[in-house]
């Protein structure tokens, strides 16, 4: 048991230090690496608690997939848009840790004074070993009692993926797909800027200014061919805005 406690303290100290590093370090990529370290140590603690399957899921899903996703998004975002550390309101920087310490003291008092009550289940280590391990026990639970939530979770994942793709699409492509797939009637989703109804076809100068010509032309064609005739109220100075929308 002494070895057990030693491992626990080792894992927990590393994970807490890594969590502090994650919060304190300036570079977001380093934060992500620290978070991976924390999650790995927590997976080790899951193993100590007898939840081997959860430890594996933690490493695969969190440390593998989610963190790689975060790193990808970090690379996709312009670094100049990432705010510097410590720039926020001073009250925020003082009150935040203060509230955290207060909450920790409250929770610690609650844990120290808690009393266990109620009946215990039958998933004792002997029974789990009899079933074949924690993985088999979780499988039994998931595919009998929690079957419906299990299927709903798969639906949630599907919707999450579709939503993420829709949200992260470039706007022009997204609007194009939405226009095609939703079958909007002509012009209902197109807010044209106010202005005199002067005919202003896309000129070579417009094309050179905006840059993305072929794509925008196609989008406009998909949405409303009348735009090309100039009766839609386009003016030359809003040409860029119109082609973007």
């Amino acid at each position, binding site marked *: 048991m002494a070895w057990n406690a*030693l491992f626990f303290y080792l894992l927990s100290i590393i994970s*807490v230090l890594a969590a502090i590093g994650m919060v304190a370090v300036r570079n977001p990529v380093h934060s992500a690496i620290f978070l991976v370290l924390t999650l790995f140590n927590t997976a080790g603690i899951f193993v100590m608690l007898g939840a081997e399957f959860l430890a594996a899921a933690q490493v695969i*899903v969190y440390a593998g997939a989610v963190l790689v996703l975060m790193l990808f998004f970090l690379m996709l975002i312009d670094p100049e848009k990432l705010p510097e550390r410590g720039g926020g309101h001073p009250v925020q920087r003082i009150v935040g*840790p203060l509230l955290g310490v207060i909450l*920790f003291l409250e929770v610690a008092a609650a844990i120290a004074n808690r009393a266990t009550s109620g009946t215990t289940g039958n998933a004792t280590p002997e029974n789990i070993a009899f079933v074949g391990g924690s993985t088999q026990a979780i499988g039994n639970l998931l595919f009998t009692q929690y079957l419906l939530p299990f299927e709903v979770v798969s639906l949630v994942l599907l919707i999450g993926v579709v939503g993420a793709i829709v949200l992260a699409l470039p706007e022009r492509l997204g609007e194009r797909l939405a226009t095609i797939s939703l079958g909007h009637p002509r012009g209902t989703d197109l807010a044209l800027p106010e202005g005199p109804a002067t005919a202003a076809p896309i000129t070579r100068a417009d094309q050179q200014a905006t840059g993305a010509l072929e794509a925008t032309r196609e989008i406009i064609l998909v949405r409303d061919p009348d735009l090309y005739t100039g009766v839609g109220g386009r003016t030359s100075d809003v040409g860029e805005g119109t082609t973007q929308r």
Partner: protein
Amino acid sequence: MMELTTNHFLFLSAALFVIGLMGVLVRRNLIIMFMCVELMMNAVNLSLVAFARETSTMYGEGFVLFTIAVAAAEAAVGLAIILALSRRSYSVDADEFHALYD
């Protein structure tokens, strides 16, 4: 070395949760705030597993599995929102966001 009880795991869980909370409160970078939320979820998962072991049930572990799945979906959607906001030439700064419309 004393024997490990559930309280040890609960204290660790509380510490991780509070560190994540401080990160959410103090940092302004949206992605780091997001990582802190993941850390808080992880802390709660830890306490769920600890309680499951204490009460000799499997419900806590099943719940943690669902939590991990939902957290993965949430991470995808949340990061996509952050990316869409950053594309609109905003910055990834929590203080700069006032609304999600437009």
